């Protein structure tokens, strides 16, 4: 009965959304905001990647909020699972040794991943990529050993400090602008960074710094999340 009504309502939703969609100007949107930004961004912000300009400059506070959400989720997961860290020691005995190939491969991959991650972060304002993508790669780089060599742990204290400082860094850069009497998070060019040349690494004012903060923060949060969940008392999860 419940399934039937669920299907009925889902079908209804599908139908209504389709009806709705036919009325929307998909593919021919007015793009009021988009056009403005496309025109203004190269001069105002100076990034090659306009998505990055939107993400960090025009909607910087969104990104800050998003980092905060990630941080919140990580903190909550820490609260939920962290209380049982004594179980992780017990767990280790039950799991077999790591395999040679996987562990060596992960050793080889790690520096590469770190380099790629930082590259993507630093060139985020010029090419597709950025702090989020790079941050995820960094997280993977540090999480890989945990997967391939059971028993390895990552220092949670380190993660806490990195995520804290990276998040604080993002905000500090924003507050820095306020010190000069400018609005919060304004990407400003005329202090010690200089304006930079459009298209080069040192351009777009404080944006690369912001992306670095984002990358580190995302990396630390994700690594923390993955490690915490992997350390959870998995033995008690049903294995049938």
């Amino acid at each position, binding site marked *: 009965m419940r399934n039937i009504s669920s299907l009925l309502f889902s079908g209804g939703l599908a139908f209504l959304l389709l009806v709705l*969609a036919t009325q929307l100007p998909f593919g021919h949107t007015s793009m009021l905001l988009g056009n403005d930004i496309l025109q203004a961004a190269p001069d105002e912000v100076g990034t090659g*990647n*306009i998505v990055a300009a939107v993400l960090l400059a025009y909607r910087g506070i969104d990104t800050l909020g998003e980092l905060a959400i990630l941080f919140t989720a990580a903190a909550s997961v820490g609260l939920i699972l962290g209380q049982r860290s004594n179980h992780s020691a017990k767990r280790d005995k039950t799991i077999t040794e790591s395999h040679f190939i996987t562990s060596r491969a992960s050793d080889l991959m790690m520096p590469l991943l770190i380099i790629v991650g930082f590259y993507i972060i630093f060139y985020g304002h010029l090419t597709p990529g950025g702090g989020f993508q790079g941050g995820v790669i960094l997280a993977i780089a540090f999480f890989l050993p945990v997967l391939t060599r059971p028993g390895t742990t990552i220092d949670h204290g380190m993660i806490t400090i990195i995520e804290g400082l990276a998040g604080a860094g993002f905000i500090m850069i924003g507050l820095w602008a306020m010190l000069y009497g400018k609005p919060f998070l304004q990407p400003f060019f005329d202090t010690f960074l200089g304006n930079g040349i459009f298209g080069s690494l040192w351009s777009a004012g404080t944006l690369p710094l912001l992306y670095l903060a984002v990358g580190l923060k995302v990396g630390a949060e994700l690594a923390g999340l993955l490690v915490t969940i992997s350390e959870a008392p998995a033995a008690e999860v049903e294995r049938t």
Partner: protein
Amino acid sequence: MTMPGIEVVFYTGAIGLIVIGMAGVLMVKNVFRMLLALVLLEAGASLLLILSGFRETGVAPILLSGHAAGQLMNDPVPQALVLTAIVIGVGIQALALALILRIKHRYHSLDMGEIREQMEHDIAVNSGVVSPASAQSPEPGGHHHG
């Protein structure tokens, strides 16, 4: 709308994802599967959001990639929004996963109905309406599968 373009495929896909996700959330009993359905649902919504900046002839909004001068770019705003939405989704999913792990540990079940019943009992005990003696739930750790 004269002729349905490629966007029809896209938004049908988005709506399909939404509806499949929704049906999944409604119909499955296992909370982990419910979470997976939620992921689908969010994917559908993200797709719908990014479609709102879609232009039939548009290119990626990156200035240095050597597009022809006159080419229109896609709207960069929804792309930024979707990035945000995805990260938010990841955070929520991670939190849900952690909760599910702990609930499994605590209640020895992933069935939403059973979890609800045990939760209601626990709440009743909390508020003192039911005495703890009449506990239906097995003590934590006192019950092992396999």
